[in-house]
């Protein structure tokens, strides 16, 4: 039984790690900007498309295949540098202080625009480039074969959790972000440039989403519709952990990963239901998520 479950677990955790990248970006953007970005999933798939294009270019020119690892990282930075400031300045900034329906609808409009732009630029065929995965090879422990790339993904996710925590607790930027999250007006009145913080935080969120998409290319490929699927999964994970909670998103992706394993093991046909069912159960018991805190009702 263990021989069956452990590879399954690794597989689920690797895909949970990918969702985690998207979810943690979503949660970060929500906690700083207080905007739920419905277009977040599209940025994940854009990151994937850019990474796949660069990797395919590297393969076609027969450059050093190890360059594709740099390409994965570069494409995330590239997408964040272009889309982060652009979207924050043009659309998201306009929704600050507006009601949730307005914020959700504006970003939903953006989602529709980005989905079609991807279709126009990258076409409707799916992209698949597994050079980075093949390069890393496999690992055999006790007769079970593991993909090293999957282990790398889980390691990267852990690295992101630690990195974000270090960034927020131990750097100047992190303290500024904390100040803005705690009390936006007070932060502004003591001279913190909140607009800059918003751009940086949003771009960081975009970077994390795009990184997830880029890292997903070698294992699962990129196809139209990925943005919409990722969006709800990232949403589910962020909601389980509690919107705005970084460690919460990490624990939530673990829960979703394990829930999927259990579903595959017990009722295989229902594996796609597992993340949403987990979200439903958690939100019904704790609507503000596992790690979130209750906010007071408006008077």
């Amino acid at each position: 039984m263990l021989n069956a479950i452990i590879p399954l677990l690794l597989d689920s955790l690797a895909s949970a790690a990918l969702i985690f990248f998207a979810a943690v970006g979503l949660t970060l953007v929500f906690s700083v900007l207080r905007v739920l970005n419905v277009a977040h999933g599209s940025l994940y798939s854009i990151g994937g498309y850019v990474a796949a294009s660069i990797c395919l270019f590297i393969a076609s020119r027969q450059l050093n295949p190890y360059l594709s690892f740099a390409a994965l990282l570069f494409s995330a930075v590239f997408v964040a540098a272009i889309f982060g400031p652009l979207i924050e300045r043009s659309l998201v900034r306009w929704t600050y202080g507006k009601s949730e329906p307005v914020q959700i609808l504006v970003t939903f409009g953006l989602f529709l625009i980005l989905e079609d732009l991807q279709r126009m630029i990258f076409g409707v065929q799916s992209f698949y480039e597994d050079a980075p995965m093949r390069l890393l090879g496999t690992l055999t422990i006790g007769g079970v074969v593991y993909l090293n790339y999957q282990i790398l993904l889980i390691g990267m996710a852990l690295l992101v959790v630690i990195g974000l925590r270090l960034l927020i607790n131990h750097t100047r930027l992190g303290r500024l972000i904390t100040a803005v999250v705690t009390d936006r007006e007070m932060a502004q009145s003591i001279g913190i440039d909140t607009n800059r913080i918003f751009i940086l935080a949003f771009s960081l969120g975009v970077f994390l989403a795009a990184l997830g998409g880029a890292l997903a290319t070698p294992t699962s490929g990129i196809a139209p519709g990925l943005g919409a699927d990722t969006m709800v999964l990232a949403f589910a994970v962020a909601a389980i952990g509690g919107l705005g909670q970084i460690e919460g998103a990490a624990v939530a992706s673990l829960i979703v990963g394990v829930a999927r394993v259990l579903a595959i093991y017990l009722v295989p046909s229902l594996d796609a239901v597992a993340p949403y069912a987990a979200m439903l159960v958690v939100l019904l018991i704790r609507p503000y998520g596992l790690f979130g805190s209750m906010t007071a009702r408006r008077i």
Partner: protein
Amino acid sequence: MRTIFATLAVLILAVLPVAAPWLQFVLTLAIAKGFAALGVAVLLRAGLISIGHAMFFAASAYGVAFLARAGIHDFGLLLILSVLAGALVGAVAGSFLVRYRAIFFAMLNLAVSMVFYALCAKLYSVTGGTDGMPVPVPAVFGIVFAEPVFKNVLFYLSLGLMVLVGVSVQRYLNSPLGHALSAVHTNEIRLEYLGIPVWAVLLIAYVISAALAGLGGAIAGFAIGRVVPDFAFWTASGHLVLIAVLGGIGGVPGAFIGALFLELLHSAAVTVTDSWNLIVGITLIVVIMFMPQGVYGLFARREVSSL
């Protein structure tokens, strides 16, 4: 004056398919989506945004398909039972969902609808999986029409229902119960101090909105002739909210104007480009930024609600 305008608009709608037969399907679908968007708009009045109403749309459509499979072939019976099914799902989901507000309400609706979507897509033996289920041509008042004739009959029945249901919903919104919705949006604690149970106000609104979405779904099922899980996907829910906002949440006509506007724009746009979502996305953002009262706000004389 407004009644004259409304009557004129309905008459024009009724005549349009005679002049251009291809419009009949587009208009039927627009009316169906208008019903669902009206349901979303009812909740938007209370400041609650549901990104999950496509679930009720799909629930009733599946209801029709299941009932037809079970041997019921009467149009009226199918419609009533399936709308009741949608309302029932709404009552069950609503009984716990209306405790939540703002982003939590939106998220939970999304979660419930995605569970529903995944179940429809995965339970292959029951729902036919992603292939969906066929909706056969039913008998209307005991008469079995050929399919093209039925589609015509369906259009005029939907048009009639639009007027009937539209007037009823308008009455509901103008009743104290309807006004309580806007009051929830403004300040719900004040409402509780006045002795009005917010929970009940919202649950009634939720069931009504689910039934409206269900009615739309049933009509769409008949018009398309097939029900697929994508009816319940979250982007479909997003589109319903979009239609409601596009038309304006101020009154009943808004939802139908929004749906007509969008469906007609769609049929016009597909002849030129396939980047349909791009156009919708830009339109949505422009409408929200510059016309927060929606397209309907352009015509309404009185102050109408906006987001």
